[in-house]
């Protein structure tokens, strides 16, 4: 399990979800497809990256220890790679190619950010209430330096009453 999931860890963000499905459902038959979908929905509902749903798969397979192992396996290998690259990148400081690359990436990343707004909105804005919450949250965040936790809490209360 360790090996499979840590290899999965190299697939990249939510792009690895289909791959994870292929492995844990079709190949190893650890859980059913319906359970996987339910886990996925929970992974999206809970805070933190969706890939944390690996913890649930681990839990279903091997209890609490399985959850810990699966979580470590999915995040650690990628983290080591990222650390190494980040370190190498810092050592390139002053290299003109580094600056040119960073300059070229900036508008591309900005475009990805806008695409992210639309992707998230497609999944989360499904009713007038959620649309209103999103707009109000954007305005508050732009105009104040408030901690987002305040907003999340307020939205949770609104949702608990308005979105049953």
């Amino acid at each position, binding site marked *: 399990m360790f090996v499979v999931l840590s290899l999965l860890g190299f697939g990249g963000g939510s792009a690895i979800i289909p791959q994870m499905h292929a492995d844990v459902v079709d190949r190893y038959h650890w859980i059913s497809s319906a359970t996987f979908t339910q886990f996925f929905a929970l992974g999206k509902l809970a805070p933190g990256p969706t890939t944390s749903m690996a913890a649930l798969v681990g839990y279903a397979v091997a209890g609490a220890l399985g959850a810990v192992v699966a979580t470590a396996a999915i995040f650690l290998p990628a983290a080591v790679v990222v650390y190494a690259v980040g370190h190498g990148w810092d050592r390139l400081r002053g290299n003109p190619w580094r600056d040119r*690359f960073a300059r070229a990436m900036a508008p591309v990343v900005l475009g990805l950010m806008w695409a992210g707004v639309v992707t998230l909105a497609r999944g989360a804005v499904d009713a007038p209430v959620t649309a209103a919450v999103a707009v109000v949250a954007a305005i508050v965040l732009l105009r104040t330096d408030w901690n987002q936790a305040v907003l999340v809490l307020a939205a949770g209360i609104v949702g608990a*009453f308005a979105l049953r």
Partner: protein
Amino acid sequence: MPPPARRVAASRPPSLIEIATVFGRISSTSFGGGQMAAIRREVVRRNGWLDETEFLELFSIAQILPGANPTNIAVLVGSRLRGVAGAAAALLAAVLPGFLILLLIAAVVLEAHLPALRGALRACAAVAVGLTLANAIEMTLPRRRDLVQLAISAGVASFVIVLHASLWLTLLVFLPVAFVATSRSAR
């Protein structure tokens, strides 16, 4: 051009506990994605640990590398601020609270169907949309006069939204264009 950050980069690097607190708070309050936006808000806007350019740089690396983007950026920011220990603190704080809350929610939601809880979580996910929107606006404003960059951003956004293009295909198509366009406009 000055970055839109409200505060100048801090002169003293933050302590490990400060790093862990910020990333722990982000990971335990970011619902339904939008974590990158939350991280930028905390690291650039509220704490001034990195300026906009530095953050964009690390953001680019986090996007390209394998692994979940929010944990990638946690590692990169942590290591930029405090080396290996900073990276470890940020990673742990970024993963642990979400992990625990996920198990908790799983236990509650899988056992009993609570409509109020589902409603609350849906509204929290809507906050993530608002957060990402606010960030996108904030990052776009300082570039609003640079039509070349805006055109590239708009191209990337529509490419991904309309064609559902993968990250790698998007980079393959747009990075060379951006490379040529930005090196020319710099002169």
